[in-house]
């Protein structure tokens, strides 16, 4: 899967991006020969047949784990190597949090269907779900700055992924937390609502099911029956859903990273596209695919934990 997606992106990128245009119209103008001389060694010359370019690129990855270079000659590997962790941290953290919050709220809402708590929670979710991520992020930035001013020290950092010169285990964790809090919050804010609604409706269906009534007839209280019998069954479809929503979170991360000036994959994506950096774009796509795959595997594991029937067969 990941391989197929990556290769497909390679061809798509060539169809839409043109590294040559980076050099055309430069001042002083470069001759055709000069441009070719610049592009050719970077495997970005469109005079070379596409299949040959592809093979050079692909074999580079397969045999040397070399993802190529940008039109200016920077190694994609180097760029991705440190950006990857920054983004992965953000995305996995956000995914985990928004799933947990969504499910938690869903359970809360379902257990007080149509009562005040449920209505308030649902109303809030409808609003947050419709906030564009950019607005959410900027709003959070304003709030954080106001908060920092109020306490008189920088609790939340609004830019960057880490402060320079922090070392040691605990200081690093604290520093990371201070940086990651806002972008994560932005992603969670706009993303949790879908799980809230999904979990709520699934759980409500399950609460009305015959087997929950049966569990109560056995002597479980309503709350016990819901916790033990309804919740577990309703979690299974929700978990599967998580795997499918990772691409969406990735898109959200692209925007948040740019806003919070994180040098992560998302920001790299925008950068590479604007610079016609084919190899870079493809590497970002590959990263997205890997994240989706990891999400799917995690979801599968969760389903196996939750649903013993899968283990049997």
């Amino acid at each position: 899967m990941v391989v197929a997606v990556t290769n497909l992106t390679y061809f798509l990128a060539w169809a839409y991006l043109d590294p040559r245009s980076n050099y055309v119209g430069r001042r002083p103008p470069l001759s055709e020969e000069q441009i070719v001389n610049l592009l050719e060694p970077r495997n970005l010359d469109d005079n070379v047949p596409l299949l040959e370019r592809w093979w050079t690129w692909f074999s580079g990855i397969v045999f040397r784990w070399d993802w190529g270079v940008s039109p200016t000659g920077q190694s994609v590997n180097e760029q991705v190597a440190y950006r990857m962790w920054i983004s992965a941290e953000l995305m996995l953290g956000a995914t985990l949090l928004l799933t947990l919050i969504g499910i938690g709220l869903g359970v809360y809402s379902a257990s007080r269907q149509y009562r005040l708590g449920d209505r308030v929670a649902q109303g809030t979710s409808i609003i947050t779900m419709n906030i564009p991520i950019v607005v959410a992020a900027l709003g959070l930035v304003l709030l954080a700055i106001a908060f920092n001013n109020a306490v008189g020290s920088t609790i939340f950092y609004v830019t960057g992924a880490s402060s320079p010169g922090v070392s040691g285990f605990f200081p690093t964790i604290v520093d990371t937390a201070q940086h990651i809090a806002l972008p994560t919050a932005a992603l969670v804010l706009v993303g949790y609502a879908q799980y809230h609604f999904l979990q709520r409706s699934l759980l409500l269906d399950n609460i009305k099911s015959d087997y929950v009534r049966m569990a109560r007839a056995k002597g479980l209280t309503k709350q016990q029956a819901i916790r033990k019998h309804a919740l577990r069954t309703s979690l299974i479809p929700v978990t599967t859903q998580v795997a499918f929503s990772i691409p969406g979170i990735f898109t959200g991360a692209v925007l948040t990273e740019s806003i919070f000036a994180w040098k992560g994959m998302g920001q790299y994506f925008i950068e590479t596209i604007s610079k016609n950096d084919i190899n870079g774009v493809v590497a970002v796509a590959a990263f997205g695919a890997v994240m989706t795959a990891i999400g799917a595997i995690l979801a599968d594991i969760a389903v196996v934990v939750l649903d013993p029937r899968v283990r049997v067969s």
Partner: protein
Amino acid sequence: MTTPVLSVRDLTVSFPSEAGRVDAVRGVSFDVGQGRTLGIVGESGSGKSVTSLAVMGLLDDNARVGGSVMFEGQELLGRTDAQMSKIRGNGISMIFQDPLTSLTPVFSVGDQIVEALTIHDARLSRRAAWDRAVELLRLVGIPRPQERVKSFPHEFSGGMRQRVVIAIAMANNPRLIIADEPTTALDVTIQAQILDLIKTAQRETGAAVMMITHDMGVVANIADDVIVMYAGRPIEQAPVDTLFADTRMPYSIGLLGAIPRVDKSEKRPLVPIKGSPPLLVDLPDACPFAARCPIVTDACLTAEPELVAVGGHADHRAACVRAEEIRAGRLGDDPVYPVPEVPASTLETVPRELRKPTLEVENLTKTFPLLKGSFRKKKVGEVHAVKGVSFDIREGETMAIVGESGSGKTTTLLQIMDFAAQDDGDIRIVGTSVADLQGGRAERELRRDVQIVFQDPVGSLDPRMTVFDVVAEPLRTVGMPAADVGPRVDELMDLVGLDPAHSDRFPAAFSGGQRQRIGIARALATNPKLVVLDEPVSALDVSVQAGVINLLDELKVRLGLSYLFVAHDLSVVRHIADRVAVMYLGSFVEHGDVDAVFDDPQHPYTEALLSAIPVPDPVVERGREHIVLTGDLPSPTDTITGCAFVSRCPLFQTLDENERVACETKVPALSGRTGVHVNACHHR
């Protein structure tokens, strides 16, 4: 007298709804003593389930409950969920209707039994609980309980899951077991097993049982006392023998008159109760049955009759102002319900052999490939859904196919409806072989001759089409001129007993029985020769069912139709059919004239099937011997070398070694009096 286990007084339950307050239960009182069984019968919506849920304290939060429910001298109403949970599953346990959905899919059956045990006894060790779970499974007749205890519900058949539910209900030796239609979703042979099992559970635990059902046969089989409910109230209450022998209230009389009997061959028309039950919103102070009662008088409309003792017996009570005039279902010399006339057929005087065949089926076979794998389906075997079935239907004749679920009845029908060409056999409809059909035109012509009526009167009608459009659809497909369609639809509506003026309404505005009539009108639109009916009455209440059956009888005579009828209710089959075939795992095991088969069943399976049906007469029922089959239907994927019935056959058990060889190695063929009565058993 000892205090009863459960004593309910003036129980009322109401729900808020958009149309106003729904009074689902309006004053129910009864006692159930230790070791006794109380049967509660009534039509759908009469408040049976709500009564039982009120006792269990399992009603929705929006229900308003009044009156008193005393369990072993303690009041249950008004207790909190936590207090009730101490009694539920311990003192009182419950068996629900649908075994397929009552068990939690993600827990093993063992886990679910253990949970029922440990929740009431925290000191019970896990080991001891598991041992007891295995013990309980053995008690309810699950084979190899040691292994099966780890299985998940989806690995069990419906009958086995209901056993597990019963095991859970028995787990803590309850003093009261409430069973809400525990066998309605099951086949008759399984029903017989489950009823036996409930009796066993009652013997083991000495519990009182509240048995809720709509089946008078089940009541006659199991109950000591009976309550008949109508519109949320008991309208007759008596010991079972009295109720059946000396029925006093017109509604109970109607219920009994509406059911066909499997043990009697006389073909008198059934007596339907006209109309449908009232809505439970703002009921007037009058007899709720007045609109449907054939002997209604002015006195009935002045006040709702109280449930009072009749005939000088304190334990026989009825809610009818004329109860004292009625003796055993008769008012003076006349029956309470006038017996409807059903015209006799002129065809019936012509011997069967001389009548033209409308459908001939020869060696019908259908196999489904068995696929495995989620991505690339691989064929890993075949399911033989129908194996070499042959029969014919003559003009004006009804042929019924009976059998348990999964035996291949519906597949047989669908093959015929699809005009499926057979490799090594044939389907001929009014003389035309489906193998000769060339082109869509010939097929459309033939389609006019065969029409189908489905089981589910709700699901088979498109809710967005008016009844007119529903009935007109087949007419338009065969290209009838628009000017003729209108009168024909009116004619058809009239034919099936509906008011043609109502044809501009949507199906939702009609009751179940009326919708089934619409389905029949649609099927008759093209003047077919053969109507195929797939469980046409099984979704209907008995009183409504009787009307539809009478209609089918009448139409057959008036229009000279032939029916191919599939049903699992053998009483209905006996009533309506001329010929019957018993199907088991895709093949006919017995086939012949309906009276021959029902009065003298020869195949051990037919015998068991017929004996399993409870007869709505407690005296007869007590004297009847039920052959209880062990085990479930084998999976159709199993390869079978000899007789398909060998795994459950009671006769096989009594045979000696030599005789058994034939059963295990040779597939028995149908033999006997050809064309009259044949069976597929080596030893009959």
